[in-house]
């Protein structure tokens, strides 16, 4: 039926058949331009430090003016070493997060802070990625000091390439070789 209809139609025209048109060639399309990959810079956080005393001196535990009631001068060298170690740790940690392979499955954290996957992500892999690297970090650090540093809380304010800013709080104690991370939480700690 279809063939007959074609013949009929063809038989009904006196016009010469048109020359076959040349094989159409597709117009050159612009080569796909990959979205620009953000440049990943090594993390170099800005360290801001304040001290809080945890000494018993002056707190009426010992008799006023007695040996145990005298506050010792903070050990500046130990505090500097502690805070420098924290910065090195967090810079390296955040670097690993922003530089990780997208399909990487190994944990980013080098320590056991539990198995709450949402919270673990909130303090690590949610913070940055190769497509959304870190642009700026400030480590707002409070060091709790007797004579030596006893512990520190760090509110890391992390701004990524897309302009998102996130805060995470990390808590450290001095370790034998480097600061030891004791706790972490999303947000500014409050």
């Amino acid at each position, binding site marked *: 039926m279809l063939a007959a209809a074609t013949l009929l139609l063809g038989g009904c025209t006196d016009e010469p058949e048109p020359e076959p048109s040349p094989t159409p060639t597709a117009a050159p399309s612009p080569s796909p331009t990959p979205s620009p990959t953000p440049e990943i810079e090594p993390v170099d956080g800005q360290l801001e430090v304040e001290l*809080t*005393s*945890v*000494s*018993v001196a002056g*707190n*009426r*535990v*010992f*008799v*006023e003016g*007695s040996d*145990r009631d005298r506050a010792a001068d903070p050990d500046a060298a130990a505090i500097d070493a502690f805070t420098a170690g924290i910065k090195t740790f967090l810079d390296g940690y955040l670097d690993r997060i922003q530089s990780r392979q997208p399909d990487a499955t190994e944990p980013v954290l080098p*320590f*056991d*802070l*539990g198995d*709450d996957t*949402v*919270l*673990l*992500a*909130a*303090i690590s892999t*949610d*913070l940055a990625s190769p497509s*959304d690297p870190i642009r700026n970090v400030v480590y707002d650090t409070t060091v*709790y000091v*007797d004579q030596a540093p*006893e*512990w520190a*809380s760090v509110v890391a304010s992390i701004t990524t390439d*897309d302009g*998102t800013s*996130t*805060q995470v*709080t990390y*808590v450290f*104690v*001095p370790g034998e070789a480097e600061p*030891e*991370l*004791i*706790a*972490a*939480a*999303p*947000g*500014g*700690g*409050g």
Partner: protein
Amino acid sequence: MIRRALVAFLAPLLVAAGLQAAPQLLYQPVEDDVITVLLLGADQGPPRGGSPLDARADAFHLLVVSPDRKHASFLNFPRDSWVPVAGVGTTKINACLVGGPERCVATVENLFDTKVDAWFVTSMHGMADAFADFGGVEVDVETPVYDGGADITETGPQVLRGEALTFARDRKNRSGGDFRRTEAQGELLIAAHHKLLAERRSVAGTLEAVRILRSHSVTNATPAQLLRYGFTALEVETVHNVNVPGYASTAGAASVVRLTDDAFPLVRDVLQDGKPPQD
């Protein structure tokens, strides 16, 4: 990205609504099975002379936290408990602090065949300042109390700051004397835990509580231990106030408290799971 925004947005709302079942934080847990901490209030140091580390422990409490961290108990010892004190012989338990906190630890460990993980010692004013610095705690005052420098003349629920010392010290104006006093000290400690959960259930709140504890007491706990204990406290749901049972007696001319036969199994039971057997 969405998830982190949700976490940041919802966490404070849940806290404000009292709906947050668990603190939104991750921490290195204490690895011990039960946690046992000895809390001692010395009769020396401000307002008196001497050192709280060479004194009598007139407040004597053993905190036990269960292995699952959901339960805890304060075991309250009457200061006159007549027990074998390590290196001394049988005498009042508060005398152990004359030999330093480690002697008190050895006394408890020998008595109950347990291990004490850490100790804290403070003076009377150190304790009062700690409660004031903490912003006070709410307790129910059953009768006016006076023996502590700041009279508490009103009864009923109220927030005690420095007056917590009076609540902790007075035994002469209460029925039950030393037994009621040590129980009242436990009430203060439990009220402090309630306040931590109600108002400071966060990293910053816990660090502030740990700072107050650290700067108003002497301890052998390491900073890492202190922090882990602080974060562990956020998980504890039920705290029991357990008086170690005894009865008033004498030993020569001295008034003493003899622990009853059921005191030792009771303490050992609490040391197993952080709660008294009837719970």
